[in-house]
């Protein structure tokens, strides 16, 4: 048992925090909410220079050889700073999935460029029914000879506007777990078009339409009809790692709130001295610590190749609660000032709600946990 970050992880954490506070302050995040691209190219390049996109990839493929936990440490800081842009999609949704299930060709083709930041990736999984399950994949894919023809549309595709490479699961046969096939498609492929969605998080999400898009079979990830287990592992990893993003956001909001309540004087005393304010903050601490420990536990198990369904479900339930509840309580303790658009807190509040929805709300994750307890 070892509940500490390693010295290297501590250094990573500190340097990431320092870098992001400098290069990705709330003012930048705010500006990017109305930016067509959604993130500044130079920031992406700086991060590439720091080796962040390559952090969790093996050195032989151009990465830093770091662990999933290393990546989680970095993602926690990114959540803290609300880093905009395609990092999560590039590294987690696309990169780690290719590393896990890709052919030698695919790995050599893509991982070095993803790891260097030269290639930007995104996953286009969800469809109109927005389900994170095998039944959610209904878009049609037809095999003919050496190619796969895709038609249909995907929703909630993050940063599709800047994606060079899209990971697109489609249904080539059957139903349920069988017959899902994952295609890797260039963002510029002929027949791909997109239109923007507007989200409470004001991030870049798109509906992406595929009009008879043709993909050579060597771009199929994990085998024809064999995509579901790959996608399931990919979702598990992404769910656990996204909890780290939530934990980072919640932690920052807690700190802002403690800071604000110490400054804000009402009735001749800082409101931080009121017991109800203190108890709210104490409950935030417990919620965030719970979520953080559960998140790192889930990630550690994934890293060790152990079963982690139960631990991921628990982490997601706790992280959903921690982030959302922390932001809502923070809004309440701040009162009017933070209800104004120009105050930064509301940017976290809006993102916390989306973090709850992504990779499944708490209801289905509770059910996974209930099953793990042996309930029939």
């Amino acid at each position, binding site marked *: 048992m070892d509940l500490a970050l390693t010295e290297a992880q501590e250094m990573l954490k500190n340097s990431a925090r320092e870098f992001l506070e400098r290069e990705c302050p709330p003012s930048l995040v705010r500006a990017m909410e109305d930016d067509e691209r959604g993130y500044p190219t130079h920031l992406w390049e700086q991060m590439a220079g720091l080796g962040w996109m390559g952090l969790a990839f093996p050195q032989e493929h151009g990465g830093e050889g770091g662990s999933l936990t290393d990546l989680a440490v970095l993602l926690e800081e990114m959540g803290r700073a609300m880093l905009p842009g395609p990092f999560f999609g590039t590294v987690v949704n696309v990169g780690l999935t290719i590393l896990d299930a890709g052919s030698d060709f695919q790995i050599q083709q893509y991982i070095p460029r993803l790891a260097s930041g030269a290639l930007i990736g995104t996953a286009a999984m*969800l469809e*109109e*029914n*927005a*389900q994170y*399950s095998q*039944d959610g994949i209904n878009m049609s894919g037809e095999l003919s000879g050496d190619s796969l023809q895709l038609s249909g549309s995907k*929703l*909630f595709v993050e940063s599709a506007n800047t994606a060079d490479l899209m990971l697109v699961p489609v249904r080539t046969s059957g139903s349920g777990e069988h017959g899902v096939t994952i295609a890797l498609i260039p963002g510029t492929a002929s027949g791909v078009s997109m*239109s923007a*969605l*507007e*989200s*409470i*998080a004001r991030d870049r999400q798109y*509906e992406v339409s595929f009009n008879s898009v043709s993909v050579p079979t060597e771009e199929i990830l994990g085998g024809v009809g064999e995509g579901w287990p790959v996608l399931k592992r990919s979702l598990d990893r992404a769910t656990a790692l996204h909890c780290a993003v939530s934990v980072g956001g919640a932690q920052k909001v807690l700190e802002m709130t403690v800071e604000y309540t110490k400054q804000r*004087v*009402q*009735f001749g005393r800082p*409101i931080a001295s*009121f017991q*109800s*304010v203190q108890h709210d903050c104490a409950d935030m601490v417990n919620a965030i610590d719970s979520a953080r420990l559960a998140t790192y536990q889930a990630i550690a198990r994934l890293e060790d190749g152990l079963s982690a369904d139960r631990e991921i479900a628990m982490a997601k339930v706790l992280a959903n609660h921690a982030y*959302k509840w922390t932001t*809502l309580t923070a*809004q*309440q303790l701040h*009162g*009017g000032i933070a*209800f*104004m*658009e*120009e*105050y930064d807190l*509301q940017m976290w*509040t*809006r993102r916390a*709600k*989306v973090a*709850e*929805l*992504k990779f499944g*709300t*708490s*209801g289905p994750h*509770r*059910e996974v946990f209930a099953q793990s307890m042996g309930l029939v």
Partner: protein
Amino acid sequence: MDFRFTAEQDEWREEVRAIIESLITPELEEEMQNNSDLGPGPAGKAFMRALGEKGLLGIPWEEKHGGLGRPLMDQYIFSEEIGRIGGLYTNSTAVNMVGPTITRVGTDEQQDEWIPKMLSGEVECALGYTEPGAGTDLAGLETRAVEDGDEFVINGQKMFTSAAHFSSHIWLLARTDPDAPKHRGLSVFLVPMDSPGITVRPLWRMDDGRTNEVFFDNVRIPRANQIGEPNRGWYHVAMALDFERVSLGGRYAGLLKRLNALVKYANETTANGAPLSQDPYVRGQFADLGIKLEVVRMFSYRTAWMIDQGQVPNYESSAQKIIATDLIQEIADFGVELLGMHGQLTKDSPHNRLDGELEQAYRSGIFLRFGGGANEVQRDIIARRGLGMPR
């Protein structure tokens, strides 16, 4: 005990519903669609004045003041019908808060001057209470009103003055005796918004609504515009806040409509091969929220009914305020969750569900839990005023 409306009350409801519906013009619908976050536009104002012509701005007011002289419960029924539609402007601050205060503490002249104009919609009020340094601790405010002959000269700054950009007047709480203990040196004024020296600056809320900062720079108003007893403004304002808490009850109808829309959505949306409504977690959440909503209704009826009985709600209006405003947030929170990934999409987005109303409600639901007296303070009030627990 009887919790049902009487036949007369049911008839009244039908009557006001018909009037309200008859007054909703295509222009108003368009305006609400495009413009609702900015306050009423010309069609909204016209609607309000038309209500005034029908007498519906003065339902519980005595006939001698130009009102209908009906029980407060009829006002409450009206506010449910207004709330059922949502987004309608009814000059509520003037007729439900400021006006009742003036009839209790104003001079006859003041009553004659202001009340008819409020009931017709000519006088509309923004609330000028909060300041940058005085929110929950309202009595700590610093805006000064200094006597100068027959006038008062006002200097200072108000914040979060929501209706300042479309109201004719501001109901201003200002310090008139800086040497008195802080609750005892305040007075209230009705200040025309077009007075020289007033500057209104917009503040944008996180739910896209507009509020304002209002700056007073040597604003001069006649002494006659000081309402009630000098230096008793704190107590006049506390009275008005109690009226405000009561009027919150009208939220029931709007929340019921929202919850019903979510029930319909859950019944009609399939997830993993079964209607969402059959998800165990979803059913439990609906039941809890539905029960709380019924509590809101009963608590609302209770306060309105008490006032009609000539009683003064004590802790009951605080209880109602907590329950109603927490629930507004909870329903929005659950609603977005129920809609899943689609729940995040705004009203302008393709693929949104239920017109994107839930995500907007999630953002705006934050407001009322601290606005109008933070819920923590309401709990303090229940304990201290309701149970006699010591400070």
